[in-house]
């Protein structure tokens, strides 16, 4: 709605921009129409939930724990997502993971003692890969030649694999477990590859927190600059005075921040905190004045929108409800809420179930809106959920949900009245108040320090964005494609490759395992290339009038935030090392999982093959008639899935050393579920690889999180189901809203 503003720059082009196909969408709106947005919001929500209710969840050990579950799932979910986008399913993918593991052990383990074929692993491992590829090829070819649904074909392979796994295992070993991988020839070599892991306890780096904080702050700043660059229209000539103001603001903010970290008194914290915040706001304002065209006020909408009042009332009710909950419920009561065992709870359960049924019937008859049965279901769920959480936990969750809902509702109302900026400023003030409220009443360090800081930062960001929107004019057309990018990219690539090669040679000399060395080399080369690219982007931002720099800035910002998090997760300080006995390790599976997610996203977004995947998934015949090799694309996808199943199988086999014949059976549905949570459509032609990876992380967080929170595992699938449903619904709603506005 706000995209069509008149600016000097594009005044003569403004009439074609009215066409919705040409309309430029702002960065936030582009993000909201991504397929993985629901999963992303869901992941943040689930992380926050478990971070609040359990102490170890947010630590590096907790992260390693759920990433490990996510990795075994995600290694498959990413290729399965590609296959689903290509319009097919592979139901044999789950049992395939176990099959490759079983095959390797049966082929390699000792003949006399364990009942295997006694081959060297140097032969058995490649053989199992060829087996996997052959099955993938078989699936793909059969689906293509017969035009049968892949659902049926791979169901056949699924049963065959399950039966063959069991049959051969029992035939060879007389048991259902294939055992004794470590007694096979060549075990050392292959275990170095598939059993390798990064052991955090062995990597001490005492200045880690400086790197972490530095990268995070730099990343956040660059991300904000990039978003502004994407959102606002550049001036013809920069206003140097604005840059000066911005520099002064930055200096003041930085000094304030350093003093804030240095001093420890409560009084001085106040002063330096305010100085830091003011400095940041001044810096943002100066930057906007310097670079962007001045904003023109949009006239407030004159026609009366009846929904504004609705949103306003709902928002106020939610906020009041949140405040009431915070005031009424006991913040120090860690007993279970438990409505279930008392009469009121049971009555509530009965009423809820009854109401759901009655309202559902009424909704089916068209008497009430379809939303009403959900209210009944909510009433029925309250007693069940209350059994799981403590009073203080319920208070935090209810408060959080109501407050966020209230703010979102009010902001919608404000936007429709043209008061978005004012409202954002008010919200940031509200969040500051909330932060001090949390600080005054919470007793754990996590809430008092970490949540407090996070809330203040969010408030600062909101205020800064409102400032920027008041000062700068929005873009009316998409930024041009990058001009200087390729050169920086080439330099970065060359330097990165060089660094990678040097690292590879050094690592191989240490002989920690081939794959491990390669991953480390890629990582180091990547960091060097990234640094070169970041410097080039900095140059482009400050010294050129290149309008395409926004995307590069966003990329650099996200990258350095990721690097910061990685530093925190992968390195331990000697202080921490002394305090813990736990061993935190990131296996090769986790590294491959992350690599898969990035590769999958790159293939989909940047390569011809990615376009082919979308094309054959959207409409196979149409794609074929425009020259896409549909059969080859689909067969390649099937083989990709089984090759990933082989990698997963190897990771499992070398971790467990003995594999039960049913390992992996039934997981194919998890892969599909996770891909759908990540935004893939069951009909094909639409979806995201990153989304599937995020979906896998959500699954990992939920299964591990329930353990960390010491919740009763009986409710595990209830929690899982509810959260999955919420993720998909949010996905649907947000996307439909965002696309409507365009």
């Amino acid at each position: 709605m706000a995209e069509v503003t008149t600016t000097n720059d594009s005044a003569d082009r403004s009439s074609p921009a009215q066409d919705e196909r040409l309309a430029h969408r702002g960065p936030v709106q582009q993000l909201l129409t991504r397929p993985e947005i629901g999963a992303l919001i869901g992941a943040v929500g689930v992380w926050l939930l478990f971070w609040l209710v359990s102490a170890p969840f947010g630590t590096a050990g907790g992260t390693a724990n759920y990433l490990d579950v996510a990795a075994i799932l995600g290694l498959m979910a990413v290729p399965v997502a590609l296959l689903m986008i290509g319009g097919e399913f592979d139901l044999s993918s789950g049992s395939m993971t176990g099959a490759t593991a079983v095959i390797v052990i049966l082929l390699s383990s000792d003949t006399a003692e364990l009942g295997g074929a006694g081959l060297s692993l140097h032969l058995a491992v490649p053989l199992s890969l060829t087996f996997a590829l052959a099955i993938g090829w078989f699936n793909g070819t059969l689906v293509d030649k017969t035009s049968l649904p892949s659902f049926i074909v791979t169901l056949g392979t699924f049963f065959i694999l399950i039966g063959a796994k069991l049959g051969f295992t029992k035939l060879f070993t007389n048991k259902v477990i294939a055992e004794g991988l470590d007694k096979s020839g060549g075990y050392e070599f292959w275990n170095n590859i598939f059993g390798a892991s990064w052991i955090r306890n062995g990597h001490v780096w005492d200045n880690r927190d400086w790197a972490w904080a530095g990268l995070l702050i730099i990343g956040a700043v660059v991300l904000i600059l990039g978003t502004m660059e994407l959102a606002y229209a550049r001036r013809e000539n920069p206003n140097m005075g604005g840059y000066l103001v911005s520099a002064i603001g930055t200096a003041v903010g930085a000094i304030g921040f350093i003093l804030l970290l240095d001093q420890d008194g409560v009084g001085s914290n106040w002063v330096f905190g305010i100085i830091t915040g003011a400095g940041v706001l001044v810096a943002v304002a100066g930057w906007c004045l310097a670079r962007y065209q001045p904003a023109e006020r949009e006239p407030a909408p004159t026609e009366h929108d009846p929904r504004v009042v609705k949103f306003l009332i709902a928002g106020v009710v939610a906020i009041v409800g949140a405040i009431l909950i915070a005031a009424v419920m006991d913040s120090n009561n860690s007993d279970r809420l438990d409505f279930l065992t008392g009469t009121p709870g049971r009555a509530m359960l009965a009423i809820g179930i009854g109401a759901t049924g009655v309202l559902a019937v009424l909704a089916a008859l068209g008497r009430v809106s379809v939303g009403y049965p959900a209210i009944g279901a909510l009433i029925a769920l309250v007693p069940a959920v209350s059994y799981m959480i403590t009073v203080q936990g319920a208070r935090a969750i209810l408060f959080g949900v109501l407050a966020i809902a209230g703010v979102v509702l009010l902001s919608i109302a404000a936007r429709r009245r043209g008061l978005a900026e004012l409202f954002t400023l008010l919200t940031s003030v509200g969040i500051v108040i909330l932060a001090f409220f949390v600080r005054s009443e919470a007793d754990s360090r996590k809430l008092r320090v970490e949540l407090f800081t996070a809330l203040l930062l969010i408030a600062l960001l909101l205020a800064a964005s409102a400032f920027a929107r008041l000062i700068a004019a929005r873009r009316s057309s998409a930024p041009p494609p990058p001009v200087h990018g390729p050169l920086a990219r080439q330099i970065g690539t060359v330097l990165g490759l060089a660094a990678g090669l040097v690292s590879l040679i050094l690592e191989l000399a240490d002989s920690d395992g081939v794959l491990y060395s390669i991953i480390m080399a890629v990582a180091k080369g990547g960091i060097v290339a990234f640094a070169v690219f970041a410097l080039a982007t900095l140059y482009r931002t400050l010294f050129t009038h290149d309008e395409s720099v926004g995307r590069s800035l966003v990329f650099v910002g996200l990258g350095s935030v990721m690097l910061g998090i990685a530093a925190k997760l992968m390195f331990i300080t000697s202080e921490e090392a002394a305090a813990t006995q736990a061993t935190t390790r990131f296996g090769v599976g986790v590294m491959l999982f992350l690599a898969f997610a990035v590769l999958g996203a790159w293939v989909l977004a940047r390569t011809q093959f990615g376009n082919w995947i979308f094309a054959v998934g959207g409409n196979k015949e149409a794609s074929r008639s425009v020259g896409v090799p549909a059969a080859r694309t689909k067969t390649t996808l099937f083989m990709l899935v089984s090759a990933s199943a082989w990698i997963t199988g190897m990771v499992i086999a070398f971790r467990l050393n003995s594999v039960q014949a049913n390992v992996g059976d039934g997981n194919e549905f998890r892969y599909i579920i996770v891909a759908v949570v990540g935004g893939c459509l069951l009909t094909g032609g639409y979806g995201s690889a990153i989304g599937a990876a995020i979906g896998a992380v959500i699954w990992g967080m939920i299964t591990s999180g329930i353990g960390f929170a010491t919740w009763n595992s009986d409710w595990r699938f209830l929690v899982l189901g509810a959260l999955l449903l919420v993720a998909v619904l949010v996905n649907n709603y947000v996307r439909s809203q965002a696309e409507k506005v365009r």
Partner: protein
Amino acid sequence: MRKLWKLFALLLAFTLVVAACGNDDDTSEPAPSEPTEAAAPATEAPAPTEAVEVDPTDGCDHTYHVITHGDSGTFWSVVEVAVRAAAAAIGCDVVYFGSNNDALRQAQEIEAAIAAGSSGIAISLADPAGVQSAAEAVVAAGIPLYTLNSGVNNYKDLGATTHIGQTETVAGNGAGERFNALGATHVLCARQEQTNVALEERCNGLAETFGGQVTSEFVGLDATPDEQQNTIAAILQGDESIDGVLGVGPNLPLRALAAGEQAGRDLIIGGFDLSSDLIDQIEQGNVAFTVDQQQYLQGYLPVILMHLQATNLNTAGGGLPILTGPGFVDTANAADVKALVSEGTR
């Protein structure tokens, strides 16, 4: 290109077949009968049922039937081996059938056994209601009926001579006493299935005799071993007071061992049933013990008892069940049991 792939696949299939056949010759010698049917179920069903005709011999005019709800897992394959050994010992035909938790199939097979003129039928009662009418028909036909493994609460009502098995609660009790002796204070009873009565009973039995606190949780399926390990680690880190883990299956103790390392905790670990890796860890002292219900007895004894009843009119048990466990495997006997496990009889 495509031809090349086909050639490749063919080559691979050939290699596999050669490997399979070559191996068959090497390993099948110690087994008394050739288990060639084991590969056949590959084409049937996800977890196939199977019927094994054991060693037809002359000189015995009795045929016995052992019809269980068992699948083809580690546990039931030992029962099957025992049935086969007992058949060889008495020199009669014994038909073993595992219905893989399908009560209808089990009932049909029982009725088929009656029609075939069986001299004795042993069944497991995982789903007593499902096979009740078939079991009553056995007694009505005047054929001796025995129950094995599950069914300790129902065998009398059905008119079975006796029950050969272990009660899960008694096994759990035994584990609880072990944990008391080992000095644990808070034991996590980790389950690999969420709604399995037998596993719940093991945990309840543990809670009955164990002096400290018991937390019973489902930690993930055997099909997702990585999830099991990480969930146990998460529970350990969520509750610092847990110092013991009882895994109510043969895989979970191994997962608990890895989880203990991950969480940096020194745990007293107990398990249920046997596997080579588990016994290795017991031998090395990393796992304290495992509860063994000695299912070999559950396959061997019914055949012998049925034969004695058919030929000598003996009825064992005296109206009470014959318990086959709990037996324990710990550091003291791990080495001896290990040899037996690899022979498939423990």
